[in-house]
């Protein structure tokens, strides 16, 4: 979960806050080992701090994400609980299957489509990718450091 799911948040955090100096993390699993939940505190080289929480623990079909970014001159709050431009109300029929729910957004361009188009254009025009191999490596390093911290119960230094 930490390397599969939370790695996205580590990448996002590093994209916003720069390189990470150290990380402290804790994790819980249920008795069957299927559900997993973790929290990690990052200390950035800039001195900024960040909390990342993630898990495969919500009821089937629930997907939530959000962020809270505060700085000396301002603040951004956002989370995916906020309603989109279309709110659909309908009578329930048979039990819904447990597919992962994705928010209905007012953004017309699907981010997966943007990503594929960007990769295709970069290859076609021989320009560099916006997301580099270095980005992938650094976010993986943070995720692995989180696992190390969980195992040692000490902060892991990057």
């Amino acid at each position, binding site marked *: 979960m930490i390397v599969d799911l939370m790695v996205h948040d580590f990448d996002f955090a590093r994209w916003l806050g720069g390189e990470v100096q150290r990380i*402290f993390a804790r994790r819980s699993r249920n008795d069957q080992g299927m559900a997993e939940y973790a929290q990690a505190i990052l200390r950035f080289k800039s001195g900024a701090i960040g909390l990342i929480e993630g898990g495969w623990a919500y009821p089937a079909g629930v997907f939530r994400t959000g962020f809270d970014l*505060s700085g000396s001159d301002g603040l951004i709050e956002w989370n995916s609980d906020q309603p989109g431009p279309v709110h659909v109300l309908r009578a329930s029929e048979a039990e819904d299957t447990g597919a992962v729910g994705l928010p209905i957004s007012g953004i017309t361009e699907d981010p997966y489509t943007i990503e594929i188009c960007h990769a295709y254009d970069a290859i076609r025009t021989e320009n560099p990718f916006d997301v580099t191999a270095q980005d992938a490596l650094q976010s993986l390093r943070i995720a692995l450091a989180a696992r190390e911290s969980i195992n040692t119960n*000490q902060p892991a230094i990057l």
Partner: protein
Amino acid sequence: MRIGILGFDHLHAEIYRENLRNIPDAEVVGFSHEKPEEGAGLNWYRRHSELLAANLNGAIICCETDRHRELVEAAADAGCQILCEKPIETNLADAKGMLDACTKQGVHFMTAFPMRFASSVTSLRAMVQRGDFGKIMGINGVNHSEIPTGHRKWFGDRTLAGGGAVMDHTVHLVDLFRWIFDVEISEVYAEVNSLLVAPQVNVETAGLMLLTFADGLHASIDCSWSRPTFYPRWGHLKMEVVGEKGAAVMDSFAEHLTLYSRGAPRNPSWVGFSSDPNQAMIEEFVASIRENREPEVTWQDGYKALEVALAAYESEKLRRPVRIGSNDRQWS
């Protein structure tokens, strides 16, 4: 019930004054403070001793945190039941001294933790205690606010307040964790910084913590003064509980109107309409005096919360998790 307010340094003193006025058998005798103008409409006493000589049943301690012991001891000697602002003191030795004074005089000590009385918190607690979420996987507690020094400067003074955002907010969330999950905190890891700096502040303005409970459960705390002064409200208190069988997301001040008003101090302002937890807390304090019994929130609750806040500073200094209540360390 004759109640006096000792010190008017804390922001909450004005709220308590209003709360007391809503209780028919409570009489606000007055307040003692250096500045007579701050009590607006209350009888002013130049000295705490003069107010304490006015035959009080209860005293609310609202001075700077590092003077709590001095006023608690004076109030206990006068035979008053005590409601003390949080954090109860700046260090454990003075916190213990306050308990000794109350025990000696046979008076009760209530810690001002109003969020226990919020309906969002009591309903979340009922769900947890019924086992609605199955095995709990993780908890996140958030208490963000603006930097309080714009209203009261001493909140930014390490000596007077004992610390900054960590001292100010951690104690609320720790108390809620202990009460909702009925377990003590055993280990604390913290990262703090002062990047969100206002002038004249020598304390931390942001803090993140990971706690381990005695039963192995993990909880995070974000206790930062990270809402700007132009935010539509003072801040918020939120909690998320993630369990094997379900999750709950609590935002205690979610119910609000958005007010746009010419000349308002905040524009727009979020005006809450949930029941006021401060009112319920003050009613419990007055009821505990009326019924001559221990209040629902005790000295022990205030002490345990202070212990965790102080451990957070220790963890920041040592850069490792710190165990609570271990004998090899003295934070006082």
